[in-house]
């Protein structure tokens, strides 16, 4: 493939001025430090066996129960600030992260619990972060919207709509500049696409991708709404994938409620992105089965019927049916759910019992050198 060689050449050039060497070195170190995920090597079209389906079910149920525990924790006043859960959208992150390799990076907005858990963050540490404890993933400094697990490739958790998109594009450039074969999975919401930060970043991705310098996979989590505003009420052109035509970025759409469909797509397009160093966009059609956040109790912007219809397509239910078709029995599922439930309860207990952050940490992590904090 011409593009591949082209890209290869470009990378070798980068290497030849030294950065390649450096880059690769550091990349490998990082990769080493990331046992938690291995690419399943799922090839295009290949169907998933019972074991794999069961493993996916275990993860998806783990996320679902974790998010439900978060909702309870918020109602009980254990979790403060804003809370945005991923209920209904689990198949999207689970499917795409199946194609995540050591050294890859993922970046997303504030609806980030699932991405952290699937990438291998300790449920205890994630829940402790939400509980604002010193044992939290980021020491209690960030909370629900700012989960980071750099060792596992999660580059955050961001609260400003659109704001993280340019970061992901820059990371993809850095990966190529440093001579690695890795890529970035950049998750963004439907609502963020009308923000200027999206436009500027996507245009840079297309531009840099022309030289094979932007292995960035844009994953649109199209859950139909930005808070209370539907896609139709946000833009006159509602084919979100097609907006990438403005940047010469290829795109497709996938059923974001069926993890098997997502996985097929994820491995295929991830492979293409790695090989070409060009960005690619996938619009994952999904749905937020719960309110946007804690403040969203009225949900005037959508009907009970609409929610009910989408519930029929709950990704957990769809995966359940697939696991059963593949030969598992209800007892296996029940056992898996019980395990997951126990793990979540353990995480909640850990979070609850953990101590608040030491007050001395208030002034750390502002600058590398604490002496720079003055006044």
């Amino acid at each position, binding site marked *: 493939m011409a593009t591949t060689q082209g890209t290869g050449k470009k990378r070798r050039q980068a290497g030849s001025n030294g950065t390649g060497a450096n880059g690769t070195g550091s990349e490998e170190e990082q990769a080493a430090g990331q046992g938690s995920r291995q690419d399943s090597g799922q090839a295009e079209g290949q169907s998933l066996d019972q074991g794999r389906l069961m493993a996916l079910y275990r993860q998806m149920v783990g996320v679902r129960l974790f998010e439900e525990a978060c909702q309870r924790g918020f109602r009980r006043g254990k979790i403060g600030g804003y809370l945005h859960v991923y209920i209904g959208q689990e198949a999207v992150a689970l499917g795409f992260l199946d194609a995540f390799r050591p050294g890859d990076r993922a970046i997303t907005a504030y609806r980030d619990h699932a991405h952290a858990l699937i990438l291998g963050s300790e449920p205890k540490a994630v829940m402790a972060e939400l509980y604002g404890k010193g044992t*939290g993933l980021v020491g209690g400094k960030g909370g629900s919207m700012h989960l980071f697990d750099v060792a596992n490739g999660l580059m955050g958790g961001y609260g400003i709509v659109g704001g993280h998109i340019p970061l992901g594009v820059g990371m993809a450039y850095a990966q190529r500049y440093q001579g690695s074969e890795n890529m970035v999975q950049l998750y963004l919401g439907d609502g963020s696409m009308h*923000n200027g930060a999206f436009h500027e970043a996507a245009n840079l991705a297309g531009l840099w991708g022309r030289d094979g310098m932007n292995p960035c996979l844009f994953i649109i989590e199209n859950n139909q709404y*930005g808070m209370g505003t539907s896609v139709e009420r946000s833009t006159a052109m509602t084919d979100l994938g097609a907006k990438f035509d403005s940047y010469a970025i290829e795109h497709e759409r996938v059923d974001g409620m069926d993890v098997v469909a997502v996985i097929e797509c994820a491995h295929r397009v991830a492979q293409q992105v790695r090989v070409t160093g060009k960005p690619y966009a996938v619009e994952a059609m999904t749905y937020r089965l719960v309110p946007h956040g804690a403040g969203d109790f009225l949900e005037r912007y959508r009907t009970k019927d609409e929610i009910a219809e989408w519930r029929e397509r709950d990704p957990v239910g769809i995966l359940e049916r697939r696991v059963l078709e593949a030969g598992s029995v209800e007892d296996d599922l029940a056992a898996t759910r019980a395990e997951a439930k126990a793990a979540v309860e353990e995480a909640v207990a850990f979070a609850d019992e953990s101590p608040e952050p030491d007050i001395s940490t208030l002034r750390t992590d502002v600058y590398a050198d604490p002496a720079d904090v003055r006044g």
Partner: protein
Amino acid sequence: MAVMTYREALKAAMVSEMERDESVVMLGEDIGVYGGTHLITDGLIDKFGPKRIIDTPIAEGGFTGAAIGMAMLGMRPIVEMMTWNFSFQASDQIIQNAAKLRYFSGGQVSVPMVIRGPNGGGVQLSAQHTHSLEGFYGHFPGLKVVSPATPADVKGMMLSAIRDPDPVIFLEAGALYSTKGEVPDGDEAVPFGQARVAREGTDVTLIAYGRQVNLLHRIADTLATDEGVNAEIIDLRSIRPFDEATIVASVKKTNRAVVVQEQWRWFSVASEVAAIIQEQAFDDLDAPVERVSGEEVPAPYARNLELAAFPGERQIIDAVHRVLYRRT
């Protein structure tokens, strides 16, 4: 007089102006169908229709700029920043266009608009969602910046803001939306450029704005009962134009001042207040003006860290003791 919440008083002012003046419209995210994330605009889309209550995409710069264009043709848009933390995306429109258009058009253009929303922290929203931007916007000529702390002021200043021929940055104390207070009935506009003496006193001048004003009331009571110290409290409320006279007059009486703010210390409102007092009451000062500001860190999430990041009673009382040369 009626007792209302800060939220109700704010809404009442906007509704009465919209009924009075067809040129007033609102733009913002989820202000219509959703009802407003802080329910300030709840029900208004039914009352005024979608042409006047305009739900926007998540594009602060775009819809703020569009509102500027509307204002240039004689409309009076009210732009809701869902929270002021998102206004950095609109800062180019606010600072480069809204603030300067009258000037670089040689007076041919006016920009009568209000940009409003909750400002300040206190509910664990962490680093990206916690800012107190009075000084940030107050720095720029062409803008007016206000920060009302009471239901009466939020109503009266919103009436003034909507009628103002210039762009107004209206910084609401988000943490106070549900607090109650007496509100004058009818059309009681509160003019800009006048600080409010919230409590008369003789021994020390305590200066703040927004939710810290309520904190100062608690502290003044403590000081009065525990130490017999009679503190005067000044609520700045209008950041630009700024009322120097009221502060200076107070310090000439008390000879001591403590400025309290949630925002960071460096290059801030408190810096300016201290500079003004030493300029204009130099010979009356018995002690340096003390400043109590937020910690020099992005806002942390954990409850205990967040509490430690904002000015607390202890710090403020210590500062009062310092200006009174008392042992704490």
